[in-house]
């Protein structure tokens, strides 16, 4: 499980993004960069979660379609779409396609409810892969679903 970044003991920072009109977040320490590169090279024969390869400054990254992974209907990349690229310690050169990126969220530690504590399937209906969701965090009337990117690549296994 990823270590959560704590600004101080009580605040953790989440990089937030939207997917199918829902707000998600990943630990900002897991994120290497966010890019608008959208030139995908499809990898035929790969699992449906694979969006394709992109080239970011000479390096090739495998991009996963987070929508598919979380059981949402696939959507076409728009001008708001972004790639969230993760650091190597999260998994080898990969990133996910999201609909839109949001702010960095400073979440008080006590606002976080971990997965084990809420009902399976509560956050997402028909979530095809387990363990992608770390927990949720309730903030100013919005619910941020915290994802665990460490398990993303496992979807492909």
């Amino acid at each position: 499980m990823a270590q959560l970044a704590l600004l101080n003991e009580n605040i953790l920072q989440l990089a937030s993004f939207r997917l199918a009109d829902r707000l998600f977040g990943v630990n900002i320490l897991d994120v290497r960069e966010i890019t608008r590169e959208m030139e995908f090279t499809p990898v035929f024969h790969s699992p449906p979660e694979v969006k394709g390869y992109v080239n970011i400054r000479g390096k090739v990254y495998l991009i996963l379609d987070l929508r598919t992974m979380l059981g949402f209907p696939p959507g076409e990349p728009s001008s708001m779409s972004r790639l969230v690229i993760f650091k190597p310690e999260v998994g080898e050169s990969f990133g996910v396609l999201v609909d839109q990126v949001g702010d960095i969220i400073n979440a008080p530690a006590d606002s976080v409810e971990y997965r084990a504590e809420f009902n399976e399937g509560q956050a997402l209906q028909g979530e095809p892969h387990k363990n992608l969701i770390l927990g949720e965090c309730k903030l100013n009337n919005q619910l941020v679903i915290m994802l665990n990117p460490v398990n993303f690549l496992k979807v492909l296994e």
Partner: protein
Amino acid sequence: MDEDIIIEFTIEAKDHLSTLEEDLLRLEGQMDGELVNKVFRVIHSIKGGAAFLGLVKLKDLAHVMETLLSMMRAGDIRPEHQYIDALLQGGDMIASMMDDIHHSNEMDISRNLALLTALLNGESQSPSSTWAHSAATAYPQTDVAAPASGLKGVEAMARYELNHLPPNYRFLYLLKYDLNQLEHQRITPVTLLKELLTQGEVVDGVLVPPTQDLRLGLPSGHMAFDVLFATWLDMDFLEVLARLPSENITQLDLAAIQKGGRLPAELDTSLSDLVFVSAPSGSAGAGSPETRGSVQAVAPQSRPLRGDAAPRINQTPTKGRLSDEIRSPASGPSSLPLQEMKPDSQTSLFAHSLSSQPEAPVPMASSTPVSGNPSERRNEPNLTEITKPSLPGPVPIVPKEAEEIDFAGRGANSLFGKAGGQTTAVQRSGGDSVETVRINVAILDKLMTLAGELVLLRNRFVRWVDKTNPVSRALAHGMDIVTTEMQESIMATRMQPVGNVFGKFPRVVRDLSRSLQKEIKITIIGSEVELDKAILEALVDPLTHLVRNSCDHGIESPEIRRQKGKNPEGEIVLHAYHQGGQINIEIQDDGAGIQVGKVKAKALQRGLKTEAELAEMTEREVYFLIMQPGFSTNEEVSELSGRGVGMDVVKTTIDGLGGDIEIKTIPGKGTTFLMKLPLTLAIIPSLIVETGDERYAIPQVNVEELVSLYADEISKKIEYAGDREVYRLRDRLLPIIRLNEVLAHRQTFTPETRLEIIERYRREMETLKDAARTDHGASGGGMGEVKRLLSILNIAVLKFGANRVGLVVEKILGMEEIVVKPMHPTMKKLACYAGATVMGDGKVALILDVQGLSRHTGVAALVEDMEEDTKTQRGETTPVLLFKYGPAETFALPLSLIKRIERIAPAQIEKVGDREYVTVDKTSTVVIRVDEYMNVSSAVQKDEMFLLLPKHIRLPMGIMVSSLVDIEEVDLNLNQKAHVEDGIMGTLLVEDKMVLLMDLHRMAERTGKGSSAGMGAAVQSRQGKKRVLVVEDTPFFRNLVASHLEQNGFEVVRAENGREGLSRLNESTFDLVLSDIQMPVMDGMEMVKQIKLSQFHKDIPSIALTSLDSSQDKEKIMASGFDQHLVKLDKAELLRAVQQTLATP
């Protein structure tokens, strides 16, 4: 310090060892003094380093080897098999000790020692025989001139010195000291030697090291120090000077030795002690001039002066000078490592002298840190002279020795670089100096990666840059060039000659041939060819296996070879060469070849294949069976079999390197394995293709050729075999893989998948064939699906191993150097891809794995080499008429193209201008004499000749024939390259004879051209030249159509698009408009609408010339106002339509 030094030591030593084997093998049976010296030096410097580092076993082993070598050097033994064997094995042992240097002291070297010792003993009687047990019995006073063959090396080293002694030095003594005892007496070796040097010359001195690391300080026990001392003093005086009891002094016969006699046996025998006696026993102790390692420890500071200085000083005749000044500069035998890295040992031995003479040695040592450096070496003489006086006098040792070590330093380069684990070593070899730098491979790899990325950036930059701006264009060009050069240079840093790997094979072959009792020689060609280090390293095992395989399974035993009338000595040739951006390595033997029957039997026995499968396999596929795991055709399991490396590993490795392997074999003659390898793993030349808007790269190593099929060729050459599509390429049937289908099917193809695909394409093909039959698409109907097929079918003929497949792609974009990036770990199980790369425009493209593709589609095991049953299988032959004109050639024309054959008499021929006519069917017909069109023999003159009247040719013409030969059914697969005469389509083989297939249309074109006869003339004669407007955006088609019409007597005006066409129409009058449909600016339909709206032009007939030929397209086209619709590319049809249209009033 230790670890760094040890690492440096092993690296250097391995460098030296790498040549050792080769040198030994060259020596074998052929004495070469230079080479012996070289080998000697290598072993010597290893011994020195090992002794210094306390690597006792290593030192001992090296020492015995050195002894043997020195005997060889002295000519006592010749480099015969048994010696070389022992030395090679010793070398191997040393190498394996180097591999695990820290445990080298625990290794068992007794076998090697025993072997070497036995050889030493067996060969030379006196000294060598004593050498294993002589410590106690050594030193017989009188035995001065006894041959000391065991230690010829020492002799050689010391001889120079001995022969240059001042004349009054009449006596030569061997002094045996015990350093510990000296210390007891508070005498340091330095003082002692100083004293000795006042009265004579120290020829040689040897510290016999106890088997203990000197770094730990002096050992407490007996420590022998032997000195060979030449002096004018007689025995009585010497006892005093030397402070030795007479029993520790041995007098030697100097005169005899100088005359060429041998050095005392003591020196030799003492050597044996070094090897077998850990601490010399008895008062005599054991000394050996050979133990340079330890000597170095004794006299480290003098090292910089060795070499040039030594002989010079020794030549100085005056005794006074010698003794007063400076034996020391002359006497530095130490090899650098010690001197530079072992200050501790200096202190321990020379504490007194160093402290008392602080100015001397240390600065010097540091002033020449690396012995090999040429510039520094040049300075040495000066240095020597300058510093001479200030040196501490007494240092034990011998100039000769110094010379010897200098050899070692020069030839084999310093054992250690500088102290402290620096990675730089400057080498000097022979006369020319080559400067090299050691660089960590990780840095090179990083550079390589960066270069790859720079190449990609460059590609993008060059594409992006504004090429209309001269400045940015020049910048881009410059960057392009520099990047390329940089990339090449960086690649060059990783390149190593294949000789590095090839070099080991003479040994392998030699050992194998002996153990197999065969006679095999190996020839190596192309050692200098360079390959990427990573590839080279990976090649070692496959190459070794292939060479072993050739020895074991390929080359027959001498008896069998004799029976077969072959040279009893088999030959293996290793050949590396460049070919088309790849490296090819051939392993060729002249052995028995691979016997298909045997292989099949084995495969059956092993259950690798069923009988039915085997029956269907081609020979080539059978050969590749030997690459299957656990395959061995040799009936007897030899010593070499079952080593766990199979031929399958060879194939796997080569595949893994992105290479390819081929097997060629001729039963009874031999076998050749051909490995094709990329120059480097990181950047490979690749074919770029496109399918479904995505580009894919195919490594060039897999690409055999590219084929484009046009229109009806497609339906003719694509055939169906069961559930597979095949393409007939010359004499082969290639399984077809359609890339778009592969990509569309995630699951491995099942027979059903294949059938489904085949059916789809077969239906399209049928439609296409129908369309082709119905007068070239003039009549329409259901052409929509065929449209795509009608254009072009691009097939990349790909190979892997013995297999060939045709990959159908949408477009072939060309060759490009690509930087290979591995597939993402989660994607590696996708067999169809070998990796990814970034293209010039920044987009990622996938690299296809040819083998994976063919596995995925299941076509891997399919027909090929079917030339023998071509006819029966194909069943699609064409009857051709064979005829002759001149006596030499036979021509062919398909019967379908011949209207009829007329008999004519030459007398009937009338000449008009430069043309000849006969009247056939009341038509003046041009007589074509073939020899006027091409370079063939002229006609056989006869009273009756024939005239072939062709079909489908408007121009009334006939080809004159002297005799009709036959009508044959032939397969019209032309060899188009073989004959390139204008008017010949290609050559055919009929009954093993070559016939020329005539190109009737071309003949007609050439006849019509520039002639006043023919169709064009007819048109003209009626109405003057007809003017045709040709509107077409593609220059190729525009010119093709226009010139075709021009050749047939029309006047043609060209336009690039509809708008231009309209303005041409307004400029003058035209009889006909021929127009493409799809064009920029204004398309054909729009143009025709305008024409039909115009009062002036509405009556000009118009023909659409297009590739759009579905019924809908056609309707649309006709609706827009065209009078006729023609499919592009049919010249005859075009001409016919044009003429017809113009003929209608």
